[in-house]
């Protein structure tokens, strides 16, 4: 049986890097598919999708809200050919009711231990309209290793440099942050994977550079410390979200290969200044993630924030405007105040303003968003700052003998396309 698994394309933000990372959701899903099923995977961000009837069953895995309309379009075309389509993934859960209109089946929740049922139902022509496991998370020991064999790995190189692989060591989050839907998606509890299972998967990975995509690594000090201790011998180099601000934790993280972290910078306080310095003291670089357009930000606040970012010597910065994704407190608050004016999900890319900001017009917020990108990267462009980060990891790898030279045979290709063809 041939299962066509598709990761729909989306349009990148203007200021973002051109990098396309191998997606995480599809490889996690693929690991739970019964072994006798042949999986044919297409990531539309790096290759064209050919829609034909040479498949038995179609799965569409979606992470971002900006993927859903394209996902629905693909499903509609396959269903016209008489193929059954099932949806899963983060943005399927965020947009479940609408997605059901384009699906034979929708899977909500986490897949481990649950896909045998789905494929058996498919074979018996008894596919359910909905498989609802949202409130029933699986046993964490069932998770992993992800099935990265479905990826066409050569497509995730830029001029011979390999992109990081995505990996996760935990799910869920204890917090309920304003713009975040993890509470709805992964539950209100922190669910770490058993460390031996994490190490087992890490040691099987042929990529030395990783992005640990956990919502936060700052949720359970003991687990975090044990994880980092166990990772030290693997000599991986990795990017992650926040790491706890305790010195002993940061020291272990650095030893375990922490390369750089995404750290939310939400104000100009000494707390943030010290937080960035603390990472730097342990040799960990910082990419600030800066959310603009919150109700406590005036125009002056945004300008001050950009000046502050330059002062604190951030290694990289990524600016976004608030996007009120469904099932977030941001969405609820703005909905109550009738401030959301744009419901085109393609516009929910965190670069377009889809709601009425409190202290300025949507147009002015867009100008300030562009101002932030332009000002931060005025003296040293993003490519140069990224290059500095890559140099840093390369020298760490050369020191510990894990450096892999770039692929010369892929030097003229960027994500599968000839470099000269990329505008």
């Amino acid at each position: 049986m041939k299962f066509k698994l598709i990761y729909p394309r989306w349009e990148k933000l203007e200021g973002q890097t051109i990098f396309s990372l191998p997606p995480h959701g599809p490889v996690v899903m693929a690991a739970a598919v019964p072994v006798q099923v042949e999986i044919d995977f297409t990531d539309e961000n790096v290759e064209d999708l050919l829609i034909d009837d040479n498949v038995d069953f179609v799965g569409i895995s979606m992470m971002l809200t900006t993927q859903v309309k394209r996902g629905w379009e693909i499903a509609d075309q396959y269903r016209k050919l008489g193929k059954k389509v099932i949806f899963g993934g983060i943005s399927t859960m965020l947009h479940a009711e609408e997605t059901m209109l384009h699906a034979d089946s929708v899977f909500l929740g986490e897949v481990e231990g649950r896909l045998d049922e789905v494929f058996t139902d498919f074979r018996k022509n008894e596919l359910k309209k909905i498989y609802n496991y949202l409130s029933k998370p699986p046993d964490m020991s069932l998770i992993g290793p992800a099935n990265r064999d479905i990826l066409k790995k050569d497509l995730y190189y830029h001029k011979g440099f390999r992109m990081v692989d995505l990996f996760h060591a935990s799910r869920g989050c204890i917090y309920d942050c304003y713009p975040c839907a993890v509470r709805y998606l992964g539950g209100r509890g922190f669910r770490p994977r058993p460390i031996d299972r994490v190490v087992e998967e890490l040691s099987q990975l042929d990529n030395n550079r990783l992005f640990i995509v956990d919502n936060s690594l700052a949720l359970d000090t003991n687990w975090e410390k044990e994880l980092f201790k166990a990772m030290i011998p693997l000599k991986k180099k990795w990017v992650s979200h926040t790491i706890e601000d305790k010195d002993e934790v940061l020291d272990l993280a650095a030893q375990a290969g922490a390369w750089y972290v995404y750290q939310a910078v939400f104000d100009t306080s000494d707390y943030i200044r010290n937080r960035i310095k603390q990472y730097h003291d342990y040799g960990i670089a910082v990419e600030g993630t800066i959310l603009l357009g919150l109700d406590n930000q005036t125009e002056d606040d945004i300008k001050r924030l950009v000046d502050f970012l330059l002062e604190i010597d951030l290694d990289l910065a990524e600016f976004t405007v608030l996007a009120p994704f469904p099932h977030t407190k941001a969405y609820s608050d703005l909905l109550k105040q009738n401030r959301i004016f744009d419901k085109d999900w393609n516009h929910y890319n965190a670069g377009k303003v889809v709601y009425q900001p409190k202290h300025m017009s949507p147009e002015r917020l867009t100008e300030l968003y562009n101002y932030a990108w332009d000002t931060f990267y005025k003296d040293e462009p993003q490519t140069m700052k990224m290059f500095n980060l890559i140099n840093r990891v390369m020298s760490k790898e050369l020191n510990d003998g894990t450096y892999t030279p770039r692929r010369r045979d892929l030097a003229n290709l960027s994500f599968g396309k000839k470099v000269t063809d990329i505008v």
Partner: protein
Amino acid sequence: METNPAFDKYMDYYFDYLGLWDSPSKCGLKLVKRKDGKTLAIATEIYRQNPGTPVTEVVAPLATQILKTSNETPVNFIFIEHTPDLRSKLAFYGETFDRVGFDWNGECFTNPSWTRLTKEQVDKMMEE
């Protein structure tokens, strides 16, 4: 960042409800039988203590469920949504009150719309 809301003058007990996709959910609840005979319901979002769907996301079915347990008529039922102050460093977790208006289709509330209230207005509504 977040502390859990405590019982206070706007919350007398926990109320269990089914959230989105049947997720078991919980809010704080206070029911006040007013002097004018109407029933005032205050549903409090309890954040981390709520394992399921927030109040706002299912406010119409939740209000319907509370109405049915209160033996009140829709016309005499006033519904207020309350988010407590979590004393967060972030500005988005302050205390708010919203009166929620609905349409009644004969079986349940639909089409919620929110009107922000001050604490003083809520206190006054409890005394009316």
